């Protein structure tokens, strides 16, 4: 009997192997078909029109990689009796269950690290400090944008694909205020926020009746309209040439410059360009933390409760006497305001802005960060920003790949391709985002986390 069982097991294994092989062969064939006009054949501009160059090795390599990868996945994950991913997942879940309050501890650890981050880099990576702090500023900007958009999408459930418009409004407000009225960063920052909030209300009004996908498409259209206007209104915005010479922020009037009266001179330090980067980092950190703090407090106020009620069921909301118009408009306005702050910061950091920086792709990236982190989850936004933005930017530093693929290999050109694949992959793997639990803001008896499946997400009802 044991022998037959073993036989059966062997037969099942054998079947599994044959199945896996077949499946992998199908996948490889599909890649061969799909890639045929793109990988081995490349159209190039040559003398006398277009010419085709051949790159057969790339095509064959792609087919083999897909075959091998798919085979391994089949054998160990898809068709295996105990998928390797489940074993790892169980281990991870077990370790987090063993330590109560791990999430809270992690939050504080991350916050602590964020506070000392510039000094961490100046101490341990003095050679690349500037690059790393710049990357931290970039990630922090996306975290702030993600938190801002989270108010609109995660809390109020209004799917906004044109969030970059408010980012652009903030950036251009500051740049134009600085150009025409000579305002500094700290004077312009609140004004930029107010203007962005104002635009949030203007664009929010027409879309009050729309929900779900339609809302997404109209907000996308508004975002593009604002960009095209910025691009073509040459007399006011300088069109595609953009605005340069945007002033840098000061610390209570102290400029980060060399010599007399600068920051370094005042505090008796030796002048270094890194001071300005550290200062910028703390500005965006504080702005982001304010965004988070305001969001967390708003969730406990009537307006925040109304947002979440609106997300769950608009009709029920209305029958309970909640003014949905005000609720939606406040969500748009407050989300837009934080986008505007982030935009001003972006303008002052870059010193130059043009409509190029505010394409639909930016909106898609911000929305992807919010959704992949887990809609409505604040820590999820942080994780997704670090993974997606940090991970993509890290590609710049991978030197060893050029040793494998030859000196002409530049990993940077693949970053958006990888970003898109990661977006699809994470979404298919975890449709509810990386953080799958939510903490309700109102509880009856005890405070506990609930699964993200219990929460409506931008479905617009």
């Amino acid at each position, binding site marked *: 009997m044991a022998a037959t069982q073993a036989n059966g097991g062997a037969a099942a294994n054998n079947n599994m192997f044959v199945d896996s092989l077949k499946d992998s062969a199908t996948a490889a064939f*599909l890649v061969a*078909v*799909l890639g*045929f*006009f*793109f*990988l081995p*054949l*490349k*159209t*190039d*501009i040559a003398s006398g*029109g*277009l*010419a*085709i160059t051949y790159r057969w090795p790339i095509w064959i390599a792609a087919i083999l990689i897909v075959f091998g990868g798919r085979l391994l996945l089949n054998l160990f994950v898809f068709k295996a009796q105990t998928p390797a991913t489940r074993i790892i997942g169980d281990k991870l879940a077990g370790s987090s269950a063993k330590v109560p309050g791990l999430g809270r501890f992690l939050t504080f650890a991350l916050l602590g690290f964020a506070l000392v981050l510039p000094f961490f880099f100046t101490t341990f990576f003095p050679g690349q400090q500037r690059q790393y702090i710049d990357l931290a500023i970039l990630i922090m900007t996306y975290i702030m944008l993600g938190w801002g958009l989270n108010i609109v999408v995660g809390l109020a459930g209004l*799917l906004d694909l044109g969030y970059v418009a408010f980012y652009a409004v903030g950036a251009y407000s500051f740049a134009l205020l600085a150009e025409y009225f000579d305002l500094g960063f700290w004077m312009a920052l609140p004004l930029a926020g107010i203007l962005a909030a104002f635009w949030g209300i203007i664009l929010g009004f*027409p*879309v009050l*009746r*729309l929900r*779900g*996908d*339609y809302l*997404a*498409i*109209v907000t*996308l*259209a*508004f975002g*593009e*309209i604002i960009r*095209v206007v910025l691009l*073509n209104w040459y007399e006011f915005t300088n069109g595609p040439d953009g605005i340069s010479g945007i002033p840098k922020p000061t610390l209570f009037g102290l400029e980060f410059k060399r010599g007399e009266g600068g920051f370094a001179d005042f505090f008796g330090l030796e002048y270094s360009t890194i001071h300005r980067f550290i200062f910028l980092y703390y500005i965006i950190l504080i702005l982001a933390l304010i965004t988070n703090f305001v969001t967390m407090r708003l969730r406990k106020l009537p307006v925040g409760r109304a947002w979440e009620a609106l997300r769950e069921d608009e*009709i029920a909301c209305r029958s309970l006497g909640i003014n949905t118009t005000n609720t939606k408009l406040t969500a748009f306005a407050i989300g837009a305001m934080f986008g505007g702050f982030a935009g001003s910061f972006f303008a002052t950091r870059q010193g130059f802005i043009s409509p190029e920086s505010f394409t639909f*792709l930016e909106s*898609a990236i911000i*929305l*992807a960060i919010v*959704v*992949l982190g887990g*809609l409505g989850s604040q820590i999820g936004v942080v994780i997704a920003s670090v993974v997606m933005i940090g991970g993509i930017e890290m590609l710049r530093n991978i030197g060893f790949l050029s040793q494998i693929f030859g000196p002409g290999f530049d990993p940077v*050109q*693949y970053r*958006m*391709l990888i*970003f*898109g*694949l990661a*977006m*699809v992959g994470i*979404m*298919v793997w975890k*449709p*509810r985002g990386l953080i799958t639990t939510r903490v309700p803001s109102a509880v009856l008896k005890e405070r506990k986390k609930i699964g993200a499946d219990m929460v*409506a*997400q*931008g*479905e*617009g009802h």
Partner: protein
Amino acid sequence: MEYFVQQLINGLTLGSIYGLIAIGYTMVYGIIGMINFAHGDIFMIGSFIALTTFLILTTIFGFVFLPVVLLIVLIIAMLFTSAWGWTVERLAYRPLRGSFRLAPLITAIGMSIVLQNFVQVSQGARVKPLPPQIQGGVTIMEGVTENGPIVVQLSYMQMIIIVTTLLLMVGFTLLISRTPLGRAQRACEQDRKMASLLGVNVDRTISLTFVMGAALASVAGLMFLLLYGVIDFYIGFLAGVKAFTAAVLGGIGSLPGAMLGGLAIGLIEVFWSGYFTVEYKDVAAFSILAIVLIFLPSGLLGKPEVEKV
């Protein structure tokens, strides 16, 4: 008057292309209720496949008889683009069927980014110019304006585009109304669960919907390539948004509506550029999208959506 007629012809040509893409949006929305954001990029993929096939046939095999070349290009582009459409559905949308509504929208945006960047990386970011292949045309009207004589011309290219679109529309309408596949497709559109209970293979029908949409988009891609003679990896985004506008304007879910909407958007865009400013023609398209969705959400020929609580 002459100028008007010329713009009308140009608008109808452009509108045919938008209409063909719009059908893909409207069918997918009708059957699974999602905006297939990557459809514009499928159109772009189609035009790249057409370009490469055209070059292989003319430069390597040395075919010179243009109608045969174009026919082969058309068939190959349709076949290979369909494979792309099928794969996108299989990889990015099918695993998320039954998930919450936002999930496939996000993967669709992701797929759009993937397709654009795949083409950019594999074919280069520079534009691909193709010299005009079909020249000449017939003169319909002649007249004199204050700026000099004006000739209204219907080029052979425009004729081919309009006639091909008409033929495809007729064939496609027959496919949807007369064949078992079309019947299954309409059944799934009405009630997916009931259709599957009655023995319709829903997954297969949805896959075929994507395949049909992609095939029509590839025809549009070939026409775009021949009409404008310049393509790059980014053409899918704008064309996609405009075609989606067309689908919404015509009433999403309605096939004649998609064609009508496409023609309307083409005409509006051409007249806007002809009589107002070229720079703001995209603003015109986007504004129409917003206005239609806000004031006429069911479009020109669509059925109003009844919400049950």
